[in-house]
């Protein structure tokens, strides 16, 4: 096999040698020899033409490349000759690498990828706090920071926002962001068309304008330049599109696509009831800061510390309690590297993704062990071939290299397929973490980092599974009963055990969460979030709901459990001093809320239509509150002093309910107080809830129609309470699903490995088995013997895996709920599953062994 690129040079060399021979022959003829003898003499004198060519070619310097080409050709031919082996090996590597790449690309998108902005490395995320800095700041603080031009080049405040876009009656909620005026300038972005938002757009009274994303431009306007200057209706207000953000930039909030971005100061126009967000008390913006040239992060924090007390006067509210004002003024700014943007997802998914990276790493190890097993078995079959090659003078190093090239080929093929698999898998994954209410979008196109990761993984794989077989194979004599093969299979079994236990633990956690009694009935309840201030909500909306066919109970409230937002305020039995910190979770509930949610009333009564603005302010407390503040006394009829949304209030307790979960299923119930929805006057969020009978979809449709008719300016979206509960388990569900999937994969690979080993060992011991059978061993006995071997391997694997469980338990502990990482039932279950699967895998080769015909077996050698 010659290196193809050297074709011309090879031909020239051949011609050069031919010329040499011709001239030598010519000379001999001149000396009187016959032409035949002259030619033969010239040949003889010249020597081995092929050898001369070979040694000459080495002088060209590219010999190693030529050899590599040879090895590759040889390896490819070998792969073609053993399609079954090749398919299993390539599939193992592809699955292992695909799983790793998928998880890594998600990890990369979430944790490592820089925002597509100018010099992301010099952006800092601004936090404020004493010990535990908050990453959320108020609008006023961000504006005040942006003014410190001696410290900052610019400060970009931003928050995710959903805009109701479209004409009355056909409103579509569109994901977007509210940003401060310096947002685009700070990030250093150039518009794809038109202009981006400027500080002037973020002044009170500025005309409402929007910048749209490149994707939105494409989807809604087909990239037409006419989109610029067009007005779209947002919350019923005409908003002018002034520009398109650069392609690839979808906001600083990683994972959330901002199709529409508007200046924060326009909030009172497009959503009057949310105007309070611009006030001092609301922390809702994240801020990315770019420092002035020549100022380091530590210099910036030091300077901020000196100027902050003076600034703080302007950004705190004088109506706050003294302590709270003091706390803010005493707080210090913290700058963290912010080039990767911000997302709440990081907090939630960091550890699960790290655990999953570990899981997929183990899957890859198992795949490696699997391929190594296959290669070793094959090496045994190729013993003769290799012995011949060694005998005719092949260098041992050359054979090691040859065998290793084959491994590298397998890894490369597997890796290539793996990248494709990873792409599909990462989309599935994204689907698992994304929900309709909080869509998660990432650009998962493989980038340099991901490809480097995959390449490294593939190369490491080749090294791992190729080295042992290569060294092993090149030693001319293979020991009959190598210890490597059984050890590899046991390692596979041990690693699979680890993953099975992990999957069991995550599944158990999910089951435990699903079985948590939330204190209400999640099924058959539909929710409608209302936009619009409390005062503008039509009073008869609940009555409208009750008239919808299928609705058996309906109510309105400020909050619903597990919606992701809670309201807390301080409240104590009358006569006691109010605590500095909020000590109760509040909810403003209308009459029928408890009935609709089926929260059991333990004592007293529910709110009624008489608990309105004019009458005595009433409250219902939950068991936890009653126990904490009233002990064994009956709280009904007692009074509470509370601070309800900034106003001092005296509340009469009219009832006690069961506890419900508030912010999460894992969080134990907190002391809670329900106040009467119709006694609240503030701008507060509102949600309608309806318990329905019969088909949920039909009822949802009917409710949507009825509510939309009442509120033509709003986007009415009906969702199920059960989905809201489900959404709090997204992370656990993702972990459980993926861990189960990957451990099933691991189990399959381990079984293939076990099957391969036993099959090979039966083939090798045909003679031995034949003799046993000839001497009277029964078929059952032979099967038992083979299965016994399998069980011994599995038990050895389990013994290997158990210490790993103990080590890994520290990692997953915080992700579990309701069971310990060393849960005995889970471990026993996993081990049992492993044994059963192993027996199934071992049965085929064992039966094969039992079918050995003693006569044929004995004749074989």
């Amino acid at each position: 096999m010659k290196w193809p690129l050297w074709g011309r040079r090879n031909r020239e060399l051949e011609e050069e040698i031919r010329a040499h021979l011709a001239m030598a022959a010519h000379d001999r003829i001149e000396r009187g020899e016959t032409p035949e003898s002259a030619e033969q003499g010239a040949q003889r004198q010249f020597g081995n033409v092929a050898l001369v060519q070979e040694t000459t070619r080495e002088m060209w310097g590219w010999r190693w490349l030529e050899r590599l080409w040879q090895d590759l050709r040889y390896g490819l031919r070998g792969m073609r000759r053993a399609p079954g082996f090749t398919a299993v090996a390539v599939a193992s590597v592809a699955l292992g690498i695909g799983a790793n790449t998928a998880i890594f690309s998600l990890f990369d998108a979430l944790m490592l990828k820089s925002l597509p902005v100018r010099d992301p490395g010099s952006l800092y995320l601004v936090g404020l706090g004493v010990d535990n800095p908050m990453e959320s700041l108020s609008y006023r603080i961000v504006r005040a920071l942006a003014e410190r031009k001696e410290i900052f080049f610019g400060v970009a405040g931003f928050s995710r926002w959903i805009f109701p876009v479209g004409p009355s009656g056909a409103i579509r909620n569109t994901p977007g962001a509210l940003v401060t005026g310096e947002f685009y300038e700070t990030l250093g972005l150039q518009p794809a068309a038109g202009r981006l938002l400027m500080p002037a757009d973020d002044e009170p009274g500025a005309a409402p304008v929007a910048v749209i994303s490149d994707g939105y431009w494409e989807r809604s306007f087909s990239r037409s330049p006419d989109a610029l200057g067009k007005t779209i209706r947002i919350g019923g207000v005409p908003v002018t599109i002034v520009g398109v953000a650069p392609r690839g930039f979808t906001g600083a909030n990683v994972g959330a696509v901002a199709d529409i971005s508007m200046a924060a100061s326009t909030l009172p126009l497009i959503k009057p009831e949310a105007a309070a967000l611009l006030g001092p008390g609301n922390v809702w913006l994240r801020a990315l800061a770019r420092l002035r040239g020549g100022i380091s992060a530590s210099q910036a924090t030091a300077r901020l510390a000196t100027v902050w007390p003076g600034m703080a006067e302007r950004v705190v509210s004088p109506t706050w309690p003294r302590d709270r004002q003091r706390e803010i003024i005493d707080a210090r700014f913290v700058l963290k590297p912010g080039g990767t943007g911000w997302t709440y997802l990081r907090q939630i998914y960091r550890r699960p993704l790290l655990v999953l990276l570990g899981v997929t790493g183990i899957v890859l190890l198992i795949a490696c062990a699997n391929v190594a097993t296959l290669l070793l078995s094959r090496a045994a079959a190729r013993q003769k071939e290799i012995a011949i090659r060694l005998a005719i003078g092949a260098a041992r190093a050359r054979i090691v290299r040859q065998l290793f090239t084959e491994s590298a080929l397998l890894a490369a093929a597997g890796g290539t397929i793996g990248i494709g698999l990873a792409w599909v898998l990462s989309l599935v994954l994204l689907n698992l973490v994304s929900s309709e209410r909080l869509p998660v979008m990432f650009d998962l196109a493989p980038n340099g980092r991901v490809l480097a990761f995959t390449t490294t993984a593939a190369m490491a794989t080749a090294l791992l599974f190729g080295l042992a077989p290569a060294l092993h194979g090149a030693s001319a004599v293979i020991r009959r009963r190598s210890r490597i093969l059984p050890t590899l299979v046991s390692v596979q079994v041990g690693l699979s055990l680890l993953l099975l236990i992990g999957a069991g633990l995550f599944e158990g956690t999910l089951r435990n969460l699903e079985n948590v009694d939330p204190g209400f009935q999640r099924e058959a309840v539909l929710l409608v979030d209302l936009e619009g201030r409390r005062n503008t909500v039509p009073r008869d909306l609940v009555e409208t709901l009750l008239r919808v066919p299928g609705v058996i109970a309906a109510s309105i409230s400020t909050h619903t459990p597990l919606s992701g937002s809670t309201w807390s305020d301080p409240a104590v039995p009358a006569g006691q001093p109010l605590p500095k910190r909020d000590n109760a979770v509040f909810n403003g509930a209308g009459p029928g809320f408890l009935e609709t949610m089926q929260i059991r009333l333990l004592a007293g009564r529910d709110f009624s239509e008489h608990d309105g603005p004019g009458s005595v302010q009433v409250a219902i407390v939950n068991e936890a509150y009653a126990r904490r503040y009233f002990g064994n006394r009956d709280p009904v009829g007692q009074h509470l002093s509370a601070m309800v949304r900034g106003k001092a209030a005296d509340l009469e307790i009219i009832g006690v309910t069961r506890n419900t979960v508030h912010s999460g299923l894992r969080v134990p119930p907190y002391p809670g107080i329900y106040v009467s929805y119709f006694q609240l006057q503030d701008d507060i969020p509102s949600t309608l809830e309806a318990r329905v009978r019969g088909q949920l979809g039909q009822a949802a449709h009917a409710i949507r129609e009825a509510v939309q008719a009442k509120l033509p300016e709003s986007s009415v979206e009906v969702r199920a309470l059960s989905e809201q509960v489900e959404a709090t388990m997204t992370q656990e569900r993702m972990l459980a699903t993926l861990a189960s999937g990957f451990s099933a994969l691991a189990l399959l690979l381990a079984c293939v490995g076990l099957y391969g080993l036993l099959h090979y060992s039966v083939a090798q011991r045909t003679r031995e088995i034949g003799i046993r059978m000839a001497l009277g061993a029964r078929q059952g006995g032979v099967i038992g013997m083979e299965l016994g071997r399998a069980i011994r391997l599995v038990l050895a694997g389990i013994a290997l895996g158990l210490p790993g469980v103990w080590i890994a338990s520290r990692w997953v502990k915080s992700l579990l709920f309701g069971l310990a990482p060393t849960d005995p039932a889970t471990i026993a279950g996993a081990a049992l599953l492993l044994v059963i699967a192993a027996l199934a895998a071992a049965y085929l080769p064992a039966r094969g062994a039992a079918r050995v015909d003693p006569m044929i077996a004995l004749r074989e050698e």
Partner: protein
Amino acid sequence: MAKGEAYQNRIELVQGTLDLLVLQTLLWGAQHGYGIAQAIRSGSGDVLQVETGSLYPALHRLEKQGWIKSEWRTTENKQRAKYYQLTAAGKKQLASEGERWRRVTAAIASLMEPRESGGAL
């Protein structure tokens, strides 16, 4: 078999020596591989026989070094052959290596013939 017999009338050439001889041969003009081998043999009175297995690698090595260059020409007998020719770098190499060679052989000769060198002292 033929090895013992060949050993008497042929001296195996050390690698560097062959390179030097090739360069020296080419000093008289361009020549093809066969011609070079012939020239070395006849020039040494049939003492030095160049193995083709050493000659061709040496030619290609020298060409890669840039000391010689090659071109296809036709011999008087209408045979197309690859002619090698010294380059400027090759001439320089020949000068310095040739000088070194002379010093080394003189040193060896003085060791092999101690009486003569003793006289020189």
